[in-house]
Structures are given as C-alpha cells and as structure tokens.
C-alpha cells in the first residue's frame, strides 16, 4: 500500500499502479522517499523503475541488521534518476531463516559488487547472481562481520586473551 505522503511522487504512484500489491509501505521522512517492496517482486519493480521511470543509476545496495527484530534484515537499494534529479530508496525485509532475495544484476550491472558485499558482510544470499563470492573479507573467512551478533574484534581474537 502506498503511503499518503508519497501519493504525489510521480515514480512511486506509477509504480503502485503498474504493480498492485508490490509496494507494502513506505515513508518520505526528511524528504527522502522510501518504498517497502515485497522481496519476491524486487526484480520486476527495479526493471520497471529503470526502463519506464528513468532511474538509470543504482547508487548502491546495502543492508541493515535489525537483530532481534523479525524480519531481521533490511536490504536497501539506493536509486537515482539523472533526468529527474531524483532519488528513491527501496527496501526489502528478509527474515533470518530465509535471507535470500533475487539479484538485480540483470537490471543494473553495478549491483554485482554491491550484492557481493552484502553477501560477504551480512550473509544475505542473492539468487541468480553471476558469482556470489566474498569480496572484502578473505574467501575462507567464517561469519559475516556486519551482523549485529558478530563481535567487533571477531571470533578468533580478543583483547581479553592477551
């Protein structure tokens, strides 16, 4: 459901009309339009926003871990339209047991490394990603450092032991 404050946002209202039910909520706090998208429909929504609404740039993909809340993970897509000089944020909520979402690399190639980063640091898996491997941490690393239950000093080392 499209929130009231985003009714006059051209991109958001067109998106809601084209994909009824795909938008589950949102807000426009601090003048930054944000839409919550059903995770199963993220690829078609992104494709529509890129092709029809001219959001040619994907600035970044990132995630937030809301432990112990459920659903736990929030995957955030930061979109930008050069023509309209507008930004739009999409969010998908993923539960811990099913932290998997379709990759948007088919829509924007730049999603490749950002999704790898989210996988590396949060452990969220992206279906149909061309090569979902760790990108910042060593490939034999255990755990996902940006999860809230991961200690800052890591599992193996701690200052107390020294």
């Amino acid at each position, binding site marked *: 459901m499209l929130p009231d404050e985003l009714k006059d946002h051209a991109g958001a209202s067109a998106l809601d009309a084209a994909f009824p039910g795909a938008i589950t909520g949102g807000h426009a706090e*601090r003048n930054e339009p944000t839409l919550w998208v059903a995770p199963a429909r993220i690829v078609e929504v992104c494709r529509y926003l890129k092709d029809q609404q001219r959001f040619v*740039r994907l*600035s970044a993909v990132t995630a*937030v871990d809301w432990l112990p809340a459920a659903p736990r993970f929030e995957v955030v897509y930061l979109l930008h339209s050069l023509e309209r000089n507008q930004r739009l944020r999409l969010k998908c909520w993923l539960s811990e047991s099913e932290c998997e979402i379709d990759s948007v690399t088919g829509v924007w190639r*730049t999603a490749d490394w950002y999704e790898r980063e989210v996988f590396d640091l949060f452990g969220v898996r992206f279906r149909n990603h061309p090569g979902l491997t760790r990108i910042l941490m060593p490939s034999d690393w255990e755990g996902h450092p940006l999860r809230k239950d991961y200690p*800052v000093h890591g599992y193996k080392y701690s200052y107390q032991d020294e």
Partner: protein
Amino acid sequence: MRETTLHTDSITAIDATHEPLIQAPAPSTRHMILNMGPQHPSTHGVLRIVLELDGETILKAVPDIGFLHTGIEKNCEVKTWQQVVTLTDRVDYLSNLSNNLVYALSVEKLIGDIEIPSKAQWMRVMLAELQRLNSHLVWLGTHALDIGAMTMFFYCFREREDILRIFEMFSGQRMMTSYIRIGGLALEPPRGWQQAVGKFINAFPSKVDEYEELLNNNPIWKRRTQGVGFVPLEDLLDLGVTGPMIRAAGVKWDVRKDEPYSSYDQFEFEIPVHTENDVYARYRVRMEEMRQSARIIKQALEGMPEGAWQASAPKIVLPEREKMKTQMEALIYHFKIVTEGFRVPAGEVYQAVESPRGEIGYYVVSNGTSKPYRVFMRTPSFGNLQALAPLLEGRLLADSIASLGSMDFVLGDVDR
C-alpha cells in the same frame, strides 16, 4: 609454452583452497595468466588484477579487492556519533575533508533542528575545494609519472605541499584532518588563514597553466592518452561510475550543482564536460575542475561571512573553555558530551556529496541512541572500479596503466 605453464602454476598455488579468479587456460592455447598487483606501483595501492593475456592483448581482467579492508563500517557502530568523524578520515586518504563533510551533513540532517552558521558552511566549502585540488594534484602527478612524464610529479607535489600546510594550519594535521565536525568545525579558523589561502590561491591558476603547457600538446602524452580507455556511456552509467569519468563522457552531472549542499548554490562555478570519453578527456575535465575549484576558493576567501563557526547547540557542540569555568550548565554539557555523547533521533538518511572521485554518499541509520546503528559508505572508488574490466579487456597491456590511472581510485576508499 614453458612460460605459460609456469604462470598458471603460480596462480593456482595462490588460490589453492579456493576457486581461481580465472580458470587456467588449456595448455594448447598461447594464453598467459598474469598477476598484476597487489604491489604493482601503478595500481596506487593494494589492488590485484588477474589478467589473461594473448600476447600483448588483455582478454580478461578480474580485479581482486579487499586487501585494505579494515572494517570501518563495523567500527562506526561502537563509537559515539562525534568519534566516527575520525574514522571517516581514514576511508579515503586523499579526500578526508569530503568524507568528514558528508558524514557531518548526514548526521546534521538526522538531527534536524540544528542550524550551521554560514561561516562554517563557507569554510567547509573552501576546505573541500582545497581538498579537491590536493586530490587532483596527486592524481595528475602519479598518472603522469605512470605514463612517463616525471617532471609533473615534482610540480604537483610542490603545490600539494602548500595545501597540506594550510590543512595543518587549520587542524594540526596534514592528512587526517577531522576538521569538519557535527555542528560546525573542530577549531576556530587560525589567525592568518586568509593570507595563507590567499597567497596560495592567487598563484595557483598560473601553476595549472604550467601543467597544461607541459602536457596539453605534448605528442607523447597525447598518443598515450587520446582514444585510450573508451567505454560506452551507457555501460559507464550501468556500472555505477560517477564523477570526472562520466563528465568526460558528456554527462553534466555534479552533486554540487544538482543537489547543492553546504551553500554551494551561493558560489559561481561551471561543470566542465567533455565528450571524447577517453583518458585524455578525463585529464582535461580534471584540469578544468582544478580551475573551477580555485574559483570557488577565491570566492570563499573574498566573501567569507563573519560570525560563529559552530552551531549554537549546547547539547552537541562542546562549550568554550572559558564558559566551563564560570557556568555550571556548560560544565554539565561538557561532561555529558564527553562521557556519553549525544543522542540522535531515530531514522535514516542518505546524503551525497561530490568528492574528487565522484558521488560519495553516506547512508546513516540511527536508532535513537548515542551511537550510529549503521553507517554505510557509498564510496566513489568502489563504484568506479567495477568499470575496470570493460576498460581493460580487448586492449593492449601497455594501455592498461593509462586507463587505470584515469580512473583515479584510492584503494582505501574501495575496501573501507
């Protein structure tokens, strides 16, 4: 043939436990796999590129990053809001002040009811532009050095030294400045800063002339750069490239103009655009950006507003030393800020600024406590580096150095 097997062996040995980045070519082909980096001088940091070569031609290039990953985003979550400023310095060692600025702006946007006095805003603009000059000078010096023009390096570092002296004058630090803080600036601008900046900025445009005289019509420089490193604009946008790279491909987009922050709308400057989309065009764009930055600094110097350099927000900004000795409230605020920091209303913001390399954006999430819940840094170098493979593949190995240099990435900025 013998050479081929030797190189493939060494590469599979490195990745013994993991999938190799490039599968070893069949022994019947003449392809060779070459490890460029992580300590190659032209990668300007710790970047490893695995190249598959057919003679001198690059068939495939796979960048391997993460060598400089220091977990800055994780560290932000255990520091108070103001302490994080020192971490933002360390993301990109050539544009510390742009990182300070974008962090301060995003937290100020989260706080909402905090007004930054115009002197602080103008000072931020001036310092960010000096930082842009500093970064472009390092880029120009090292890029020219890579291509073989050694003199440029000395010229550029001569001017850079003056900029670093100015930074030292302001903040006490040459590189890790932490000068732009939430609520304004860290310290009062030092006595005599007008003379120091004025002396530098009056002389600087003639220095740019000097650089251009050396390079613009230099036949070696032109043959090494013109027509090299072309990638179609659609691909650049699709790959998330920002900054001078896309401005050299004809896109007139600059965060300073399109989403003005910190009173950039009060300054007069142009956005240089070229359409050739090669290494030479990127060079020209950056050279013109230097002139425009000098213009902005000059305007800031001449029109610097009077008044406070910090917001009047006693719960966020540390009180003056003198007040602490005479007023109890000031002492209490000081104690509170130092021991537990300040709380920032819950919410999230994305703030972008134009760093020397492109769009740098911080996505900051607060849950209402005195520490950030999440700080995501959308760094321009990470975004730009994805265009590396299309920039190199199908081209000559010798051109790869010019192409790499024209991207102007900082590996600390890539790996965070």
